[in-house]
């Protein structure tokens, strides 16, 4: 019954739609929420959606992981390894930035008791 999902076009369409929905959820969170952690999470959601889009659209049904093992000796019918390598790199970078952001937010909260971007008042237009 779900055989139509094996059609790369249908599958890629679903992936693209899902990833874009996630992207706009992140964008909405970023623009609508003022809590520091919520904004950081929104950015993380946006990043995730880009990774999903990349991996989803770069792989077609029937392709296996690009690893030579279990009797596989030649690179046939394998997914393009480049997007996966790039996504791993991007995940690591995204995690590092998120970690830095959360630690700055915690320090800021300890120092001032504020968690709200809108209430940041040290630096602003006179």
């Amino acid at each position, binding site marked *: 019954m779900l055989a139509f999902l094996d059609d790369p076009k249908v599958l890629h369409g679903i992936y693209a739609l899902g990833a874009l929905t996630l*992207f706009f959820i992140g964008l909405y969170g*970023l623009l609508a929420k003022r809590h*520091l952690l919520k*904004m*950081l999470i929104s*950015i993380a959601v*946006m*990043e995730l959606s*880009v990774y999903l*889009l*990349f991996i989803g*659209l*770069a792989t077609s049904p029937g392709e296996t992981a690009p690893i030579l093992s279990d009797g596989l000796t030649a690179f046939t019918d394998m997914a*393009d390894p*480049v*997007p996966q390598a*790039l996504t791993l*790199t*991007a995940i690591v*970078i995204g995690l*590092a*930035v998120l970690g*830095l*952001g959360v630690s*700055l*937010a915690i*320090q*800021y909260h300890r*120092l*001032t008791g504020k968690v709200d*971007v809108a209430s*940041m008042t*040290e*630096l*602003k*237009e*006179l």
Partner: protein
Amino acid sequence: MTLPLTPVWFVALPLLLAFASPLWVRLRLLMPLLVGTPAALLLLAFVLLPEVRTAPLLETIVIAPPLGIHLQLDSASWILVALISFAGLLTNAFIWLADGEPYLRDRRAFVFLLLLIAGCNGMVLTGDLFNLYVFLEIAGVSAYALSALRRDASALEAGLKYLIIGSVAAVFFLFSVVLVYLQTGQLNLAAIAVGFGEIPGPMQILIGLLMLVGLGIKAELFPFNFWVPDIYQGSHPAVAGLYSGLLVKVFLFVLFHLVFLLLADPKVVGIWLMGLGAATMLIAEVVALRQEDLRRMLAYSSLGQIGLITLALGFGVEATTAGGLFHMVNHTLVKLLLFLTAAVLLRSFVSAQLADLAGAGRARPLAAALFVLGALAVMGLPPLSGFASKLWILKGFAEAGVFWPVALILLAALIEAGYYFRWIKVLYDPSVQLQAVHPVGRLAYAPMAVAAGLIILLGVAPFLVDALFSEGAQALLDRGATLTAVLGAGS
């Protein structure tokens, strides 16, 4: 064994030295290395200069193109690399010699400053779109951390704001990279440039818009630059000088490098970028008029000059591009000088507000004199370097018969004169007796004197560097030569 002198050292040396920092603390080499690393990179740049001027240096590590790490040093990226090393050298020398805030002189600041230099060099040199994203994040993360280093409320606020807006920019840029790869199957910039024309039109526009948002935020173009003054005000002035003098220039260069390389006809987007540049320039200059904080005023003035450079580069003619590259260098020297004087004034009088600095000219005569020199150079008065580069840009527009940018640039210079003279007048206010609270060592003025000397030298004798900037503009604009050099003659 001899180590070959290749462009990879511009990235590898600061990275290696930064991550070996615990060793340097133990050997008490932290400060000498902080200054020595950019000095060594500057030396390397000058050693490679004769080679770069004959032909662009290409370096491919690991596999053959299009796979592998790919670095490209041509005349245009040489100018930027030399500028990055020089700006790093002056700022680091100031941090060492001024003997100031301890948080800027410990291991963390050392690591972040060197990583910032490594990231900027990488962005300028790389010939690979994904590496560009990685270097963008390296430079970005070190900049966020440098902003927040003081760890008081205003520094943390600046760091957080910078981190949030910078991450959003990086997400948009990554999105465009992903779309480019899905469409062309390539990451090498030259290979993408060959295939870019075959991408369907709407997708090209989407990729272009995502890149513009990502790089526009980072390059502080209107309307993506609302956050900039906050960051400059919250950071230490020396660090803000690095952002204005170095980081923004690198992102502008990357933006225009991509425009000139990927698009067969850059004129299509050039006119839009010129519009953004003009809007950035005029709005920033007008808002700068009413700033009461020295750092905010300098931030808006920096945005104005960024707009001017965008206007010049967006036109895409050799004369304005060469003038724009020259103005990049001049503006870096001037803004480093102005932000370092701001650092001295902030340290001496504990405040950077206009009202608190009245009469500062007599308590700190040297700093005030250097501020006046920098202000005159920003406005573009002869015989200072700002005059030479602005004249070059204006001549380029006039020769092409396009006069609206000329009028706008002159108008912007008038507004600049307005707000800089307001500050100069207050600095030399005779009715107030101001006493310096904290001492500033004589040696702190040495890096500022070097910058001031270069501003005068380049203004008096611009013919010393004319040829170099013309070659840089040609290298930046000549798409065919780059493609042939990277992919071989057949393509």
